[in-house]
């Protein structure tokens, strides 16, 4: 309820801005919705955009549930892309049936390594993970640029244009297109499966139980004999692995089938590493609620381009609106708590305090720390 209200509120503000820009908001929004969800082609675009958001988003769910703030989605995506690319450059002859699963695993491995580093630093040396993950984003970008300019650069580019990119990667590693689709590939199914997997992990396994226990109360977890430090490392490692899969999907599901850089991390990730945080928060840090959330944000990003064409307003407006949604959601997280407490005070007859309910169970533990990531959430 509250998240939807947040979306509506930011759309109202967006309408005002559209009016001030001399554009017709109704026409603009119609174009937006049409471009995002209005046709099979639009839906396929939206799904493509939603895919990395969902993968990063469920990774964020894991970390935040353990009270670990992972701002390193960007770097972990790049790390996943690098490792999967290097693997395919070396064993590109393997048949697709082996190579495609291998691509996902290699992506997960790369992201896991890039997540494990800040995890170990936090658990064993007390290094703040917000700082270390941001720093590792920068390291990852520079490493990517270095690799794409020489070690794994397309040999043809070395002599001619010098575009920092790999060669056309082995066709055996191309992510298979879904039957009947033109561009939509199996990455979307993998992302959905990963979301379900993360849900099971968090609520049905002993490891997930530990992650949540550490997230709520490190003292109680320690008392109970849980390996608190290892659990923190596990949280960031798993979180990074999900982001790494997103990175691999971006390379092997791209139209060019190359790993390309424009020198920045946005050029490769399109900020999915940050927007995934927003997506997860909007999904109340629940992996299953993150699915619709990712499709909503994916749709907004796609629809913004149609809106731009229809009413000639810069699509940056949509990016701004996304930011507003976040501000509303996070402040409404607080609002929701105030409302809940008020409900407690007035009449409690209808109040429901079930912990498993994503709408009330989520966010509380991370609420205070959420302001950190959001500063950088929508660049």
């Amino acid at each position, binding site marked *: 309820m509250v998240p939807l209200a947040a979306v509506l509120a930011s759309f109202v503000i967006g309408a005002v801005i559209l009016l001030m820009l001399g554009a017709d908001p109704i026409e603009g929004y119609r174009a937006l919705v049409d471009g995002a969800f209005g046709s099979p082609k639009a839906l396929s675009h939206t799904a493509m955009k939603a895919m990395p958001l969902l993968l990063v988003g469920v990774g964020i769910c894991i970390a935040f549930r353990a009270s670990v703030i992972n701002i390193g989605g960007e770097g972990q995506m790049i790390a996943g892309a690098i490792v999967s690319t290097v693997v395919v450059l070396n064993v590109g002859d393997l048949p697709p049936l082996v190579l495609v699963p291998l691509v996902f695993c290699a992506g997960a491995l790369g992201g896991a390594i890039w997540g494990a580093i800040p995890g170990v630093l936090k658990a064993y040396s007390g290094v703040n993970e917000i700082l270390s993950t941001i720093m590792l984003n920068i390291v990852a970008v520079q490493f990517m640029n270095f690799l794409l300019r020489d070690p794994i650069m397309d040999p043809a580019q070395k002599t001619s244009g010098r575009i920092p990119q790999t060669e056309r990667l082995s066709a055996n590693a191309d992510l298979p297109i879904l039957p009947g689709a033109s561009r939509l590939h199996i990455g979307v199914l993998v992302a959905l499966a990963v979301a379900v997997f993360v849900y099971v992990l968090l609520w049905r396994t002993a490891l997930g139980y*530990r992650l949540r*226990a550490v997230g709520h109360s490190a003292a109680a977890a320690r008392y*109970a004999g849980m390996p608190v430090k290892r659990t923190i490392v596990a949280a960031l490692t798993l979180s990074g692995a999900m982001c790494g899969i997103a990175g691999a999907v971006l390379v092997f599901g791209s139209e060019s089938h190359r790993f390309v850089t424009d020198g920045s991390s946005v050029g490769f990730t399109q900020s999915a590493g940050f927007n995934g945080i927003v997506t997860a928060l909007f999904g109340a840090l629940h992996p299953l609620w993150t699915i619709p959330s990712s499709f909503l944000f994916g749709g907004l990003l796609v629809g913004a381009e149609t809106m731009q064409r229809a009413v000639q307003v810069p699509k940056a407006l949509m990016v701004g609106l996304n930011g507003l949604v976040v501000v509303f959601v996070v402040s409404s997280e607080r609002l929701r708590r105030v409302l809940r407490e008020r409900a407690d005070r007035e*009449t*409690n007859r209808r109040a429901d305090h079930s912990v498993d309910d994503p709408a009330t169970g989520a966010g509380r533990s991370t609420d205070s720390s959420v302001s950190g990531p959001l500063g950088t959430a929508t660049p």
Partner: protein
Amino acid sequence: MTETRLLELSGITKRFPGVLANDDVDLDVRVGEVHALLGENGAGKSTLMKILFGLYEPDSGQVLIEGRPSGISSPADAIRAGVAMIHQHFMLVPTLTVAENVVLGLAESGWRLDTGSVAERVRDLSARYGLEVDPSALVWQLSVGERQRVEIIKALYRDCRLLILDEPTAVLTPPEVEDLFVTLRQMADDGRGLIFISHKLDEVMSLADRITVLRDGRVSGETTPGETSKEELARMMVGRPVQLVPDKPPLEIGGVRMAVEDLRVVGDRGTEAVAGLSLEIRSGEILGIAGVSGNGQRELAEAIAGLRAPAAGRVLVDGRDVTGAHPSEVRSAGLAYVPEERMRDGVVGEFTVAENVMLVDHDRAPYCRRGMLRFGTIGERARDLVARFAVKTPSLETPTRNLSGGNIQKLILARELSGSPAVLIAAQPTRGVDIGAAEYIHRRLVEEQGRGTAILVISEDLDEVMALSDRIAVIFEGRLMGIIDRSEVDVAQLGLMMAGSSNAA
């Protein structure tokens, strides 16, 4: 005769999901009176007080202050109406000074704090009511007892007419309790009204002018200390006679099951909290630790449980050397531990009751197979333990933080005893627990002893230590002053030893 009614609550009803916390409750407080509120865990005492203080709104009923509707719907209103409350958990800002905390939230404090005049008034109030505390000290540096004094000064500073104290003595040492009572008496003599909640019948009998007993949310009786006895109060609370001291069966003591040898542990303040302590507990024996709190009891327990690394010495649990081992290793050697800080250590507040039942062995059979949790079994076990230990909870899915304090304690005890431990450490096992539950917990501890468990009881309540223990170890400043046999206990001598004079007998 018209006696002034400072406060009158009538027909207060309050419902939570699945619980009727207050059911048509009437209560009044006269000027200059200490009114004690008694009742089992979950009887609705805190809820009633939170209604009075504006934290909850009642479903029905009326609050009158000096005969007029109070109009209280928030703590700010309550303070304006002259009502102050000392909560079960304190609400001070640790990084501010005492004086700053006292004026925090006061409208007239304006932009700049005149700390000088505040400090002076704080000093006046402390002198007048015997509340010793330094206005310029930072709150985080204070002991629990001192923090409580700050809360009381805060109430006095606001010139409260009615002071609510929710289990103020649960966290105090016996001398601190005596000081507190002097203060409270003085406040009542000044014409204020006090509502005092406690589970300790001795305290209620000595301090209260009038006593109201709640049971299952309803008033089950009103009386005065003059016309009642501890036994009768216990019966009014629990609804049946209560046996305050457990029967101890004849001892069947076996071999040594737990030992610490020359243990040295550094405390939070960086000084040696346990200074070369050696103890042995045999199978089927309860060893009680008597000592004023802060003399190394907590550090001793934490060092045994693996939560604090000892600086020197050895810890043996059921024959295994677990010195400096991880808590999980100590547990698998056979230790169960009921921690003193139950809300911080003993449970995850946000987890459900069922989730907390498996906290310490969530990754072992029967709760878990191949890494997957088995909710069928978990639910069954949780239901069974909740029923056996009479934990009052609306459901197994209720977040544990919504349970009353005593019920959380019962839940922890149920969990810790369910694993048939070889060694049990019970720190403050009945703190904040009602007498019915305390009786039950004592009986369970004695039963556990009968099974051959070696039990270490750490308690600030000397009566409890004497009722349960086969031997009593007195510690002072981290050192063993002596060990006294159950049959040779002499309270006067015990007191001397607790104050640091070694066992000359």
